[in-house]
């Protein structure tokens, strides 16, 4: 049912994506180091926001466990970084995170609404305090040193993770499993009676989303050089993807990508220009965004576009 119009639109989107990708690949070659570091941060937040939206977008389950999955990646990197090669560390960080999500998913995805939200948020605190306790009583240390990696390596690896994620998400969304996820968000009971193994689907997609958060954590840890449980399991990180996705728009795939980009840049801009009032300004922007852009930036842009095209039609 693809009309010529949607085909040109898709071709245009693909061409634009490829162009941006090429620019990104070239960035470390000519841009200052600061730009590379800022872009790495943006790519990381995009990865977290898109993986969060993969599961929570269609199903409507608001997971606040992102910080846990991200943190597990960071800690895996810290524990194994000295012993194993970098690529293997990333894969293991992703896998440990994914396994944790499988376990958590099996335990909690039967919970609905606010109970699920509270549990996932509790998970971050649980891991934070468990590792804190472990370090204090068993290893007798606080925190760990992570073997550092060059800025450009981290940048390229993060870009690779994001590209893999975006391809995975668009593949899932176009497949029958994307349809199933949507149906689960609409009405779980009906989905089950139409033959969807609702529990397995939710748990697996939840784990896939955690996989990428873990990988992102394992990579970025090498730029932080020192981490401790409070840095790795910062509960605020759980809210980031939610806000970014709402800010950008949850439904289209590029919504959380745009949201993460602007959000991260805005944060950086405000922190450098207004170091004392940054949180205040940021808070006001968030409140205004949620009040006046319920469908995010993408929704706002679509609304304006519709109004413009209607006006031109009226003129002719």
């Amino acid at each position, binding site marked *: 049912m693809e009309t010529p119009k949607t085909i040109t639109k898709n071709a245009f989107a693909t061409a634009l994506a490829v162009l941006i990708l090429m620019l990104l690949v070239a960035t470390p070659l000519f841009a200052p180091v600061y730009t590379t570091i800022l872009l790495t941060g943006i790519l990381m937040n995009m990865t977290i926001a898109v993986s969060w939206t993969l599961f929570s977008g269609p199903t409507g389950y608001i997971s606040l466990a992102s910080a846990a999955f991200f943190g597990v990646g960071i800690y895996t990197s810290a524990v194994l970084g000295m012993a194993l090669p970098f690529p293997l560390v990333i894969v293991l960080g992703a896998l440990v995170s994914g396994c944790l999500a499988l376990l958590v998913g099996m335990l909690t995805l039967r919970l609905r609404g606010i109970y699920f939200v509270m549990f996932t948020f509790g998970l971050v605190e649980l891991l934070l305090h468990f590792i804190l306790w472990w370090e204090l009583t068993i290893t007798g240390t606080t925190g760990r040193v992570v073997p550092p990696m060059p800025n450009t390596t981290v940048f390229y690896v993060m870009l690779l993770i994001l590209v893999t994620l975006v391809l995975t998400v668009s593949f899932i969304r176009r497949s029958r499993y994307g*349809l*199933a996820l*949507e149906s689960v968000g*609409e009405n779980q009971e*009906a989905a*089950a*009676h*139409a*033959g969807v*193994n609702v529990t397995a689907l939710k748990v697996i997609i939840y784990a896939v989303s955690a996989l990428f958060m873990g990988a992102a954590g394992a990579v970025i840890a090498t730029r932080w050089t020192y981490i401790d449980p409070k840095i790795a399991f910062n509960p605020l990180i759980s809210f980031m993807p939610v806000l970014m996705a709402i800010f950008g728009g949850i439904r289209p795939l590029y919504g959380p990508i745009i949201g993460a980009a602007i959000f991260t840049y805005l944060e950086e801009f405000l922190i450098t220009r207004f170091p004392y009032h940054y949180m205040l300004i940021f808070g006001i922007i968030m409140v205004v965004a949620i009040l006046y852009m319920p469908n995010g930036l993408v929704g706002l842009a679509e609304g304006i576009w519709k109004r413009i095209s209607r006006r031109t039609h009226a003129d002719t």
Partner: protein
Amino acid sequence: MPILEAKGVTRYFGGLAAVSNVDFDLRQGEILGLIGPNGAGKTTLFNLISAVISPRSGSITFRDREIVGLKPHEICRMGVARTFQTVKVFSNMSALHNVLLGAYFGRQDRMATTDAVSEATALLEFVELAEATATPAKDLTLASQKRLEVARALATQPEVLLLDEMMEGLNPSEVVRAMSLVKRIQERGVTVVMIEHVMRAIMSVCDRIIVLHHGAKIAEGTPEEISANQEVVEVYFGERTDAANI
């Protein structure tokens, strides 16, 4: 050999027996009506068959295989599909996608995308929703949403279809349309169990009727036998207000 058989099925809600010691058998190819006053346990019986809840005791077999303890999606894939008393369509998904989901996931064998799409399109035509293919389910009328649910259930290629009050809330002409749909489903070779309050529909469409009252089966037989049964007339047809609607 019955296609679906229940023996001594019992389920309590608190101290109340919602379904108590019910036996029934469903014969291949028939349309079986399930009637009874509100709270008689009809929907509970459907929920027991489709594994929304599990019975406290008793057994339910589909083609001689015990299905108690299976999950709803497993029962659907085995060949027992259902619709719901209050429609449960996927509101923001198009009619086609609603049906497509059943074709993708509700069958025993995996269906290729193109086959699934043509099957779903054909089913939308079968339930007279061909022109609504791209319409979001929430924009359809209640009668259309109910037919959409039927198409979604049929997409799972069921041998047995459980229809829960398909005609509730429909106007007289829609009821006639729904009745012919049930007949056409039977002609496809699907065995139908229907819960219904619209007596005219039940009496003219069903081959056999089971009457439930307070969770127990009180009568079973052809429509003629049921309408002549004294006990049934007392508990059910005795409600004058209902009779006025017939």
